[in-house]
């Protein structure tokens, strides 16, 4: 039961994004790219930035998906990632604030599935966390008189993650055998699939 498939994580794969990672879990391959944009913080959270994670299950990953708007599974996964990030307090949003009430970072994390072969929540969460660790932001200077925003040339700001949530999927086969990190075929024939996300101190987040 504790045999898991090959788990490979590569960071910094996408040169044009601010932070990226590629995760391979058995046959499943997931790419995460993070783009940071400047925006004014929402009225009710003046000194906090935000993280928006979006999962895209592209048609090339599996014959199950058609091109077009995100299907139910993609939206469901996006919502789940959002819940895990909130519940585990992965990121202290105040780190993303540059000037309270005026300017903050908004991180858009786009997670694309390149090959769909089961254990998707596990792979997506790992890709998101790895990309956040890889993220490099420039320091922002706001000129006092003209309010001009100048980003610095070097990217030296890294984000501190308060915890590292890890998700593991289990599939129940034939009512007796439990398989860890199931592949696509195993998920199809299983009676139930359970995904558990935990933080460091044995707390379940989702």
């Amino acid at each position, binding site marked *: 039961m504790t045999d898991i498939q090959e788990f490979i994580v590569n960071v910094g794969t996408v040169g044009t994004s601010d932070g990226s990672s590629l995760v391979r879990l058995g046959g499943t391959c997931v790419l995460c790219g993070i783009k940071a944009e400047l925006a004014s913080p929402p009225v009710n959270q003046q000194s906090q930035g935000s993280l928006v994670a979006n999962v895209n299950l592209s048609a090339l990953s599996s014959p199950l998906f058609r091109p077009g708007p995100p299907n139910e599974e993609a*939206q*469901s996964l996006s*919502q789940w990632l959002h*819940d895990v990030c909130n*519940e585990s307090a992965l990121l202290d949003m105040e780190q993303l604030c540059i000037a309270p009430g005026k300017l903050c970072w908004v991180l858009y994390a786009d997670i694309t599935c390149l090959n769909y072969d089961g254990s998707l929540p596990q792979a997506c969460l790992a890709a998101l966390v790895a990309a956040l660790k890889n993220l490099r932001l420039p320091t922002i200077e706001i000129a006092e008189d003209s309010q001009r925003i100048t980003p610095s040339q070097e990217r030296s700001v890294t984000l501190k993650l308060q915890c590292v949530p890890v998700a593991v999927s289990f599939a129940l086969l034939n009512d007796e055998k439990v398989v860890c990190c199931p592949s696509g075929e195993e998920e199809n024939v299983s009676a139930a699939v359970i995904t558990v996300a935990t*933080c460091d101190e044995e707390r379940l987040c989702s």
Partner: protein
Amino acid sequence: ASCVLEIVQVVNVLCAAMDMDTENEKASLRHCVCEQGLLNRCDGSARLQQGSTSVMVGVFGPAEVRMSKELSNRATVEVTYKPKVGLPVVKHRALEQLIRCTCEPCILTALHPRSLVSITIQEEHDDGSLLSCTLNAICLALMDAGMAMNYPMAAVSCALMTDGDLVFDPTAEQEKEAKATVTSIFDKSCADVVSCHAVGALTVDQLDRCLEACKPAAASIQQFY
């Protein structure tokens, strides 16, 4: 639990007050009112009110299904959730998937291959425990439609407060204050958990405790059915 049953010609109205005190925790579920057969165009419909939370469910089935969604050996289950205000967004899609995965094993889909069971949910008022109210309403609507089911599913919500107390069927305010909310769905025997959805951070022991404590509450819901 005490049950008062009044059968009216056109509309069945079931009222039951459920109060239950267990030894360790105060397990009292809010007053439940259910109305079945209120929509005459649907095959089956039900409106369930748990305290102030109210949900209306309409069921069509077995009906014709589009070729792309057709399954050769069983019925396709389709769930549509309509929020009270605004258009359905990403979190409602996630809720639809959760409800579909919970209802599929409950309905005897093998009896109706190449057809569709369509469940439409309209949220009327959300005052906490929305997911458990929705699933119980779906069960009642399926019964009204005469759909063959493996077991009547009973859903119970339980909130774990910061002081370690468990509150069953929490209101919206209690859910906001709680450390975590666990919704668990049980089958007829109330010994097996069919599905479980947890929001918030909690340890494995706390999750086990919530699941164990929800069983008597689920038994009283089964009795209500």
